[in-house]
């Protein structure tokens, strides 16, 4: 079970961002020019630095019959483009450049836990798990009220702990991640 959870955390995080719905690498240009428009549908725009936006309601169900929706964080178009750029840079193993690009995204959405999770993930890849841990804690703090984002933050924390050899603590973090988002 421990192994399974560990694989889940590391795999999910390092494989890049299924949890963030980030655009594929080819969607935006490198720093040599302007990022190109996204070829996939961008997530609903969130005001930069905003609190969680309510999830989209199902169009066929009257609002009064719907169960209360949990708020969820999303990335705005600018941060989405920059995260895409960072993934491209990451694929060419240019982690330093990817980190700088993600810091640009952070300056646009400083209170969005998803950006912090991306930055933490990059730090694990770059071999800085202690920094990734701090970013995971920060993401968890900012993700208040969004279980999915909290779960992702715990996954990052777990991955950073495991990368530091703190396996027991990593296991506890992974359990928290799963409990918050069993799917």
């Amino acid at each position, binding site marked *: 079970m421990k192994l399974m959870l560990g694989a889940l955390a590391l795999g999910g995080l390092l494989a890049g961002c299924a949890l963030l719905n980030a655009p594929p690498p080819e969607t*935006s240009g*490198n*720093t*040599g*020019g*302007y*990022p*190109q*428009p*996204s070829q996939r549908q961008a997530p609903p*725009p969130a*005001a*930069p*630095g905003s*609190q969680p936006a309510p999830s989209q309601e199902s169009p066929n169900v009257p609002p009064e019959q719907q169960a209360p929706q949990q708020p969820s964080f999303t990335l*705005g*178009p*600018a941060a*989405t*483009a*920059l995260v895409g750029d960072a993934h491209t840079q990451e694929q060419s193993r240019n982690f*330093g*450049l990817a*980190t*700088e*690009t993600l*810091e*640009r995204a*952070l*300056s*646009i959405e*400083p*209170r969005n836990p998803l950006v912090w999770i991306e*930055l933490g993930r990059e730090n694990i890849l770059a071999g800085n798990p202690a*920094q990734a841990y*701090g*970013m995971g*804690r*920060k993401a968890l*703090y*900012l*993700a*208040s*009220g969004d279980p999915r984002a909290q779960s992702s933050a715990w996954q990052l924390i777990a991955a950073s702990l495991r990368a530091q050899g703190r396996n027991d603590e990593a296991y506890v973090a992974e359990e928290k991640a799963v409990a918050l988002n069993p799917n």
Partner: protein
Amino acid sequence: MGLVVGGAYIYYLNLLVTHQFEGLRWTLPAHVYAAPMDLYAGLPLSEPQLEHELQRLSYHGVTDLEQPGTYRATDNRVDVALRAVQFADGSRPATVLSIFFGPTGIQDLRDSSNRQVPVTRLDPLLIGSLFPVDGVDRIVVTPQEVPPLLPAALKAVEDRTFDTNRGVDPFAMLRALWVDLRSHRIEEGGSTLTQQLVKSYFLTNRQTLGRKVREAIMAISLASHFSKDDLMNAYINEIFLGQDGNRSIHGFGLASEFYFGKPLSELDLPQVATLVAIVRGPTYYDPRSHAPRTLARRNLVLQILARQGVVKPEQAQVAQQQPLGVTIGASGAYYPAYLDLVRRTLRSDYPEKELTEAGLSVYTSLQPRVQELAEQSLDAQLQVLDKRHHRHDAKLEGAVVVTSPQSGDVLAIVGGRNVDFDGFNRALDANRSIGSLIKPFVYLTALETGRYNAATVIQDQPVSIKLANGRYWRPENFTRRNYGPVPVVRALAESLNDATVGVGMDIGLDKISGTLQRFGLQRAPDQVPAMLLGAIDIPPLEVAQIYNGLADGGFRTPLRAVRAVVSADDKPLKAFPLQVTQVASSADVYEVESMMEQVMTHGTGVPALRILPPGLTTAGKSGTSSQDRDSWFAGFSGGELAVVWVGYDHYQPTGLTGSEGALPVWAHLMAGLGTTSLEMPAPEGVTDTWIDYLTGLGAQPGCAGAIPVQVALPTGTQVPPMPGCGSGTTAGTLLDRAGKLLHRLVH
């Protein structure tokens, strides 16, 4: 014999010239850049604000987009011909961008093919250079970056036979000699461009006959070994063109930025003519100090250009009607206090020689808009305070530090009133007693013990503590009154000294010292009771570091002025990535922050309400040292943290509390920033709760006789009700949340 010696001397000079000139490499100071502004849909930036940013970068408004460096503003739309620029993380070619505005800011960005652009950056503003002790500053340009008009103009005005002469122009020299002999002194040089280059690169400024001979021999030698193109390019990069304090401006590349704030390639005819005019005497023809005579010489240059056929007479006529058009400031953007921090940051990684000679590019966190606002806020408020608290023996001084709490970026530093003065930097070096700025850390430490919360009633009563020397320390409140039982929130909001000392002595000085160091205090303070009232001498930058963690939910992020260093050939050398470490429970910090919000609405921060925009939520704390020697205010919004110090350099009493001296500076700065409200995410374990400000008892808004304030309390805390205010409150009810909403609407 004489011939042999002469021949040997010529041979020696020939060797010297060819050897040195072949290996010609100018020492290049590090150039320092501000943070480039990101543009994206949703950015709350108005059209006039964007225009202001473009003008700061020396973009010029035009009716038809021309070359890079121009923009066209129409209704709710700005088209910009962006320059090719180098960032810390890559380059961008010159391109055209259209920016569309809506009621709340930028609505859309499009490229020249009308494709949507999610995000892009403006150019990074050059904010200064780290030049060597000799003060030589320079931007080297390639021949491709030089407008063809410049070499043509230089030849027409300074050296008409440049293309054909052999380094010297005997007729010009004879003419100069004749003039000199007639006046019995050296009035005319008759020097070719090659001779001027030799003079600047190899020789001293002394005008002696021997030196003239040496100059001529070396010029002939240069001209015989190197092409005219090489010599012209060397001249354009070498020649001295102005002085800015202890910084000397060399080469047309830097002169263009220095006088006109834009690249050499963008200069128009009158501007090129101005630079050519300055060549004759950069001090005498300083366009800022001696505009009329520089204008007259520029017009003479234009007439010569027309006469020589370099430009058409009608072009010269039009150009003569233009003003000089030099920028007002010495370099447009010069922030010595910030550069000081940059230099100190880099000094640990780079030897001085590499910093000042290797042509590094240094990319910083400085935001020019924030910097200028901080400078203006300090200057304007100190002028007001001067009128009220004028001393004949000293001048009131101040310092400001602004950070972005989430990233730790230092956005602005003001080191004193005279912002152009590259001297004592109060923001970094004025170690001043922080007074009550320490109190949030005293109460944070108290909360961490689990024995206190914001509603805990403590005693504000006279305190008498026996010191190690046998004497007694008897601190007093600012009002010299005691208030008896008060809740913690009031003790912090009104900065009650006696109540705070009581709590501090109860929890222990060592614990409070530990908290301060966790947040970034560099040295352990003396653990004496006076520490509880801020007997800790640190500079504003260090205050900003420890407050940054309060503004960021208990996360410590080392402040950083430098983001990246790039080599002369654009290779990344060093990055300063963001670091973050949790140093306190977010729940405890959230509780302290909720009390610091009450400082602004019920305590010593209230005077700021007259200045801040209505409805803006901020948190902060004032500080005043003994005998009003130091006036402090440190506070934050949703976007920025600012620390302000006001006082005298020689520690004379100011007669100003933190609320009277530093707070107005802080409030005007925050108001001007257009910052966002503080909305920290409520961590698990605490709940926003309404209590009475005076008693700490539960009291919802609308309860008669109560002063309801909202503070965070540990979830489940039982708060007895205020008489007549209904049943007791348990932190965490739905009513609290409704009340919070109501409170936000009212304020």
